[in-house]
């Protein structure tokens, strides 16, 4: 009974302290939520097409109408001009007047007929890796189309050339079919095709839960360690398990309440689908909260000032944004970095919540075990550390 009363003392105290400072909760929860809302409203999901200039050397038998090339990669390229002066175009690229410069090879058709491969030069001037990837993709589409065009031009100039390759039947085959013998048909097997908000919603939600739990826990014990409270705890008949359980329960309740509000806003206001059940959803949130509180308490037990606790929380947030799969897929990282990524509760949290909410089922069930293991391990470490802190000072 005494233990329950002591655990209850921490629960009551923590709840009251948090409720008395609602601004902290609001800024932690509403802040990221508002940013996501603005992001969702402002971001169309479609990147603006690359402003492109194409250089077709004199004497090359390729179309010179910009509209023609725009149709080859619709939505991705905005062909501003088709010209012949490569140097002037390159200068414009350096000045930032255009995004992409594509230079067709000289006399590509003749080269093709003589069995030589020609090179299409594509230039851009950008340091953003995401931009580079998109530019590369758009370029490959355009280059593929240009290749087809070159082959088509060659075929039109002499079907005999194609007959040499395909036999007599080629005479009945239209040149554009020879140039494009296959077509692609795409299909997405996922149960939903989420928009930007729906896709990032569960990830932001997981990040909010982790950040809230970490910051709440991190500052609580730091303050007590730096004030006379820790000496009071050392003298009072309270042990580290009671103290830690009180904190876990209190912050767990607060985090769950906040999760309920944010989750409700996500589903009810932003229309993020919740294809899985509410119960399993709460279970995932509980596990994520449990593991995240462990990190927060660990920070609070090792940080020697509130400032350091803030710094460590921010470092964790930054690491979470980069490594958790929030921005870039975890599988894109080197293997050693993936271990770091999976050690962050939010990594499992994002994957589990996205699968549960957007697919209706958790496919990577092993992540549930990992999340629970992280939580238990961090609880154990926090307990050992707190025992040392509460022990008589050396």
């Amino acid at each position, binding site marked *: 009974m005494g233990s329950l009363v002591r655990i209850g*003392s921490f629960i009551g105290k923590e709840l009251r302290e948090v409720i008395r400072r609602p601004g902290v909760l609001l800024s932690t929860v509403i802040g990221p939520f508002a940013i996501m809302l603005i992001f969702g409203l402002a971001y169309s999901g479609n990147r603006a097409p690359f402003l492109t200039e194409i250089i077709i050397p004199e004497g090359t038998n390729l179309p010179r109408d910009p509209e023609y090339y725009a149709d080859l990669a619709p939505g991705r390229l905005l062909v501003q001009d088709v010209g012949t002066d490569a140097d002037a175009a390159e200068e414009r690229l350096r000045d930032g007047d255009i995004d992409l410069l594509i230079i067709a090879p000289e006399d590509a058709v003749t080269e093709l007929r003589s069995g030589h491969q020609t090179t299409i030069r594509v230039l851009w001037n950008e340091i953003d890796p995401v931009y580079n990837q998109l530019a590369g993709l758009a370029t490959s589409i355009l280059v593929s189309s240009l290749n087809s065009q070159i082959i088509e031009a060659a075929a039109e100039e002499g079907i005999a050339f194609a007959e040499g390759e395909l036999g007599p039947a080629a005479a009945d085959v239209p040149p554009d079919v020879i140039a494009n013998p296959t077509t692609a048909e795409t299909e997405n097997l996922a149960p939903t095709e989420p928009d930007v908000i729906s896709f990032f919603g569960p990830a932001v939600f997981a990040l909010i839960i982790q950040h809230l739990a970490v910051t709440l826990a991190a500052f609580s014990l730091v303050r007590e360690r730096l004030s*006379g409270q820790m000496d009071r705890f050392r003298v009072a008949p309270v042990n580290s398990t009671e103290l830690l359980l009180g904190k876990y329960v209190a912050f767990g309740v607060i985090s769950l309440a906040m999760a309920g509000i944010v989750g409700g806003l996500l589903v009810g206001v932003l229309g993020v689908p919740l294809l899985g059940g509410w119960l399993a959803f709460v279970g995932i949130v509980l596990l994520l909260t449990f593991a995240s509180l462990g990190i927060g308490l660990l920070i609070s037990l090792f940080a020697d000032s509130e400032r350091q606790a803030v710094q460590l929380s921010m470092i964790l947030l930054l690491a979470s944004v980069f490594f958790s799969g929030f921005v870039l897929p975890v599988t894109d990282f080197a293997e050693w970095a993936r271990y770091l990524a999976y050690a962050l509760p939010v990594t499992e949290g994002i994957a589990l919540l996205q699968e549960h909410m957007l697919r209706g089922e958790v496919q990577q069930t092993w992540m549930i075990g990992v999340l629970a293991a992280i939580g238990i391990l961090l609880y154990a470490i926090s307990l050992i550390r707190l025992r040392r802190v509460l022990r008589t000072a050396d």
Partner: protein
Amino acid sequence: MRDVTRAFEGRVVVDDLSFEVSPGTILGVVGPSGSGKTTTIRMLTGTLGRNNGEITVLGEDPMHFSRRVRGRLAYMPQLFSLYEDLSAQENVGFVAALYGIGPFRRTSRIKRALDVVDLLDSRHVLARNLSGGMQRRLELACALVHDPEVLFIDEPTAGIDPILREAVWDELRRLRSEGRTLVVTTQYVSEAEYCDQVALILDGELVALDNPEALRRLAFGGDVLQITTDRPVDPGLLANVSGVQSVRQPGPRTLTATVSDAGALTPVIVEAIRVAGIGVAGLEEQQPTFDEVFTELVEQSRARTNGGEANG
């Protein structure tokens, strides 16, 4: 506490300290800032270890206090130990729950503790909105809420005004009168007179340990009489009076005599002066302030130390 020593990074902060505290008394641990008072009280509460010596509180070593003994102790640290966002009664309630007091008993205990420190009317005020003095009283209420037998109170009057300091001491003496034992540190030397026993600490060493009156006598070697005459007087007049230990002459018509017993020697001194043809305009026993007592004892201690070093 016997032969206790504590050093931090090679610097001795408490040096071979020994004293006992009788149940139901107030022991004042007095000394200037940095003299080792807080280190001493933290070792007594078990929040700080020691390098040498023995400490026993309620029959147990503070390093290994049982839960039962912890429940009979209270510690009011020198550092701020309130939760600013909790009200006065919530702060006291939190500490009550720490000591295992259930919600049904808690309400009356909180009320009583707040009443004792005269904060009942401010029970709903957040700790951050209380004045410095009220916060210190609230910390005292937190220490009292579980009805402890032994209280360790570190600098209860630091930073609060003289009127409030007196009120705090009134409260501590009331607790003593209820049979509780208190160990109280203070840097205000004058507060020593509120204590039953005073341990005077300087540079981690015990300079003196006795009741306040005995310390006065220890400092000046006896009672102090101030004699005013109607004309200039020679201090040698009293040199041969039995029981007069020393005579100083602060002014031509003033003598300050340290005597073994002021009551018995007053008429003898008056007569010795009168016989010399000098009238005694006034004679009164001086009550040196504790600041003077403290200064005298410290100077004596330093003189002994310097003498010892010189001889060594």
